[in-house]
């Protein structure tokens, strides 16, 4: 655990050395606010709910989270700092976890950047606090799942751009299979796709009903990709 913390701190230090996290956080908040405000103006200004935000978040995260994750392993591989890291006495899983937590911090800051919308909307009327809490909790779980995908892809290549694009494609489709499910002719296939869909799971949490099955879904997806990440790093020894 101490090693995890060391990797976490190092990763945060390196992340915030460059402009990327600031840019990502500012863009994330900016785009979310712009989208919600123009939606709200189009529809009913007086309606105090954040549905437009939470409907938009899966897509926004699918785009931004791979950008946060892309450099985390690729940079170590390209700069060969992977060697001193892995020849230090730490378990690969601790290194993976430290990086994951550092990424999660940036994801959380991205979500936090949309909080002005909550304040604004709350001033317009009675805001359902449960739905907002559920929405942000769900968004964090969703972000964690995307992050674990992005982190795993980053461990596969020395090229950040490749990691980002693959992450974007996977996260995007994973968000969208919900829509495929809705248009599927067979009901059971549709239900299955909806069960597997990140946006479907997210929507059910964001409605303010925190179902443990939905939480377990995100936690298992995250754990699975973190496991793949550990395997992928350890398999580099056989290169």
């Amino acid at each position, binding site marked *: 655990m*101490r*090693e995890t*913390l*060391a*990797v976490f*701190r*190092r990763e945060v*230090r*390196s992340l915030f*050395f*460059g402009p990327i996290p600031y840019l990502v956080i500012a863009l994330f908040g900016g785009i979310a606010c712009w989208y919600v405000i123009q939606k709200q103006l189009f529809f009913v200004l007086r309606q105090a709910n954040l549905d437009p935000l939470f409907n938009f978040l899966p897509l926004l995260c699918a785009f931004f989270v791979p950008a946060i994750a892309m450099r985390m392993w690729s940079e170590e591989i390209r*700069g*060969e*700092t992977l*060697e*001193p*890291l*892995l*020849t*230090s*006495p*730490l*378990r690969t899983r601790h290194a993976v976890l430290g990086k994951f937590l550092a990424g999660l911090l940036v994801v959380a800051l991205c979500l936090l950047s949309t909080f002005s919308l909550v304040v604004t909307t709350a001033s317009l009327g009675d805001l359902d606090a449960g739905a907002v809490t559920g929405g942000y909790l769900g968004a964090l779980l969703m972000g964690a799942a995307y992050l674990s995908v992005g982190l795993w892809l980053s461990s596969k290549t020395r090229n950040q751009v490749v990691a980002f694009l693959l992450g974007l494609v996977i996260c995007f489709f994973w968000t969208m299979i919900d829509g495929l499910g809705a248009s599927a002719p067979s009901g059971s296939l549709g239900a299955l796709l909806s069960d597997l869909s990140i946006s479907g799971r997210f929507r059910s949490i964001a409605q303010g009903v925190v179902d443990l099955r939905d939480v377990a879904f995100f936690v298992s997806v995250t754990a699975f990709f973190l496991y793949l990440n550990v395997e992928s790093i350890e398999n580099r*020894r*056989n*290169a």
Partner: protein
Amino acid sequence: MIEVRDLVKWYGTRQALAGISFQVPKGQVVGFLGPNGAGKTTTMKILTGFLAPDGGTATVGGVDMTADPLPGLRRIGYLPAGNPQYAELRVVETLRFSAELHGLRGAARDAAVDRAIDLVGLADRRMQTTGTLSTGYRQRVGLARALLHEPEVLILDEPTSGLDPNQQQDMRTLIRSLGRERTVILSTHILPEVEAICDRAIIIHEGALVADGTLAEIRGERSRGVTATLRGTVAAAEAALRTLPDVTAVEVTPAADAPGWVRARVVGPTDRDACERVAATAVAAGLGLAALAPDTTSLEDIFAELTRSAEQEVARA
């Protein structure tokens, strides 16, 4: 302390290691020599558990580095080839991070970092980011990293590469002093470095071990014979020396600077007793003996001979 047996490693279709074996006892400083691409770095990466071999074993302090290297890594200080570092971290941050990975915390961590910084002479660069350091200072950061946890074993991949002659000298002095109480294995292709620092040299070429021993032993094995300065005639000297066993050739020439003396080169015998036998034979034949020495070959000659032979054979064919 270090034991390598039948190590084999393939990179795709290219064989990097073709079954090398050696042992390094505790406290020895070993120079790992070979041309670029000989397999030095690969061996070191396997010894630190960064790469898994395709065959053979590598143990450090009794820990199998090919299975779970973690307990072994606590006892190894490693300077990887090229000395990669996080360019955006300050020197002190780099070292703190490494210390933390070695389980050092708080005051113990800071004390270890300070000690390592003092040891390699980085005090005036503590707060500089490693990306802006010169090669010499970067190399010191790498060495400080390797020394933080006071390891018993140091594995240094080309520690003097990229340094200017003064820095090389400093680095050698430092390694020499570190080697007093540690087991050190360092790779290089600078031969005087091995002469200056190492108790022993291991020369590898194309993934195979071609020589292993103290520098005196490697020279001895390779020396071609004995040269003696004798009083007497050319004919008498030749006649006497040809009676020696294992002699392939005897060349006797009159000594240019001393009339009545000859210089005799006895080619063939390579063992330690060769000088003694030449002396006994010469004296028994009534030839006055003034000087006697086994041929010394420079390490450069040996290195060239050991590592070029394959190419030359190809060229000749």
